[in-house]
């Protein structure tokens, strides 16, 4: 199993798409978490009107929570694509049958791929946090603000929360890739789910109370609730963007359990589909 995981990591490392997704995610996360808010802050400094991100959100003290706001939706979509590509591409290239006639049982091969995928998400979290930390430091230095880092425990929890959220979305990508036996449809359906199903229903939940209990079990609601527990501001999720979330929030403990349940559910479904279906 160790060698299987090692070669799966090798595969992910050699794939251009992994690096492209990591590059775009890091760039956009930095842009939307620091560059844009900082420009906004500088422009709005004189007026200090509503909607302007306060400087205290952009300095090192808040960086863990502030960065975490980008994971529930934005980071999730990147993880979804990574998950789809990890399994769905094997169907497109026909390499699934090449692997399966080698030796590993289907579930063992899936296990190796999932472990490698889980490990690949770690740099996705760490890189964004590293670049975010540097950005917050640069802003604080530029503004002459106090450079005060959050506790290591909070950073660790934020990293773990970020990884768990990405893992849940990646698991959704994996199951969609296996069910559709490809990448295009899986990515389309995944983004459609993230934007339309969760996005619109969440947006209407304020007006239709019937939807509120449903929204509480969405990936989006639980992911935002989880990062709220590590310092993300609830105001960071509001607005008109595609990842906007106005609530309702749930307790971080419940969010943790729901996300773990999502991951488990997606993976069980993936294993079942992979085991039962013909590989042509």
């Amino acid at each position: 199993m160790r060698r299987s995981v090692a070669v799966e990591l090798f595969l992910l490392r050699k794939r251009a798409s992994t690096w492209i997704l990591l590059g775009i995610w890091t760039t956009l996360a930095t842009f939307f978490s620091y560059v844009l808010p900082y420009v906004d802050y500088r422009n709005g400094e004189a007026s200090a009107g509503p909607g302007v991100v306060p400087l205290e959100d952009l300095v090192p003290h808040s960086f863990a929570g502030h960065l975490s706001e980008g994971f529930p939706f934005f980071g999730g979509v990147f993880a979804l694509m990574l998950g789809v590509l990890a399994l769905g591409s094997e169907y497109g290239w026909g390499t699934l049958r090449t692997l399966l006639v080698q030796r590993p049982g289907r579930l063992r091969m899936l296990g190796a791929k999932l472990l490698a995928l889980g490990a690949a998400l770690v740099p996705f979290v760490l890189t964004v946090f590293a670049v975010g930390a540097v950005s917050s430091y640069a802003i604080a230095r530029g503004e002459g603000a106090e450079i005060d880092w959050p506790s290591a425990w909070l950073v660790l929890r934020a990293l773990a929360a970020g990884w768990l959220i990405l893992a849940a979305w990646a698991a959704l990508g994996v199951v969609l890739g296996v069910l559709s036996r490809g990448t295009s449809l899986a990515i389309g359906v995944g983004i459609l789910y993230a934007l339309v199903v969760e996005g619109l229903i969440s947006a209407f939940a304020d007006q239709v109370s019937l939807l509120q209990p449903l929204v509480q079990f969405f990936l989006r609601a639980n992911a935002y609730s989880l990062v709220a527990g590590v310092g993300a501001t609830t105001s960071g999720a509001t607005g008109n963007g595609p990842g906007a979330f106005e609530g309702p929030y749930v307790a971080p403990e419940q969010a943790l359990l729901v996300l773990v349940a999502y991951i488990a559910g997606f993976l069980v479904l993936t294993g079942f589909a992979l085991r039962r279906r013909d590989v042509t």
Partner: protein
Amino acid sequence: MDDSLVIETKDLRKRYGERIVAVDRLTMQVRRGEVYGFLGPNGAGKTTTLRMLLGLIRPTSGSARVLGAPPCRPEGLARIGALIETPAFYPFLSGRDNLRVLAGHSGAPESRIADVLEEVELADRAGDKFGSYSLGMKQRLGVAAALLKDPELLILDEPTNGMDAAGMAEMRTFIRSLGRGRRTVLLSSHLMAEVEQICDRVGVIHGGALVGEGTVDELRGRETLWLRVEPLSGAQRLLADFNGIEDVATVDGGLRVATDPSAAAAINRALVEAGIEVSELRPQRASLEHVFLELTAAGNGEA
């Protein structure tokens, strides 16, 4: 399962939906150490059968045992090397790296990679990306992958696809050499010459069913004599009573005589003495192609 049998299927059947029967009650046996040719036209059910033997698809009914175990068992797959249809590899990896990935999954030692690349004469291009390979090179990489585990059973599905004439000849010699000794080879092909040159035994599949099985010699039948004579009817009457002749039939404007070819001289003498002109007399044996066409025509209900 008889220990001398490497593959044994019984009434294997694969149906897609209500109308398509890809494999229909296929019963076949492949013996240890032989090169078994699985011959059939495109769409006959060869690849579907091989997929079932490798556990990639589930049979609708019937059973199969490969190396003593049901298909899909990792312990069985560990002793099988296979190339199914067009070789499928990661296009962004080199040939060598592709084999490295497969070795990692199969547990084959990395030292085997250089050996198999050498065996299929791909060592010079092993560092190039798979996506840049010609079809022939892809086939050779597929065979290299199948050999990685030094398998007891090698299943090759149309391994000479896309190769030029020289490449095909080399590959056939190579496959023949792989089948020497303890290794068993199951070769699927629609090319009769390929099967005739390489295989010890042949199974002919048509419409998903096995319509003939035996050695090439058995399938081609006994050698007969073919005569061009004048008058035909007089010769036929004479030979019908000739000692040692089992059957006389009119074929291709001449007579096909089922007898020991060593009787040719005596037959010729008797015909000439009876005033019958003999302009051609030669031993004849049905080609595998002829047998194949007869078998598949029978399968179509044309015989």
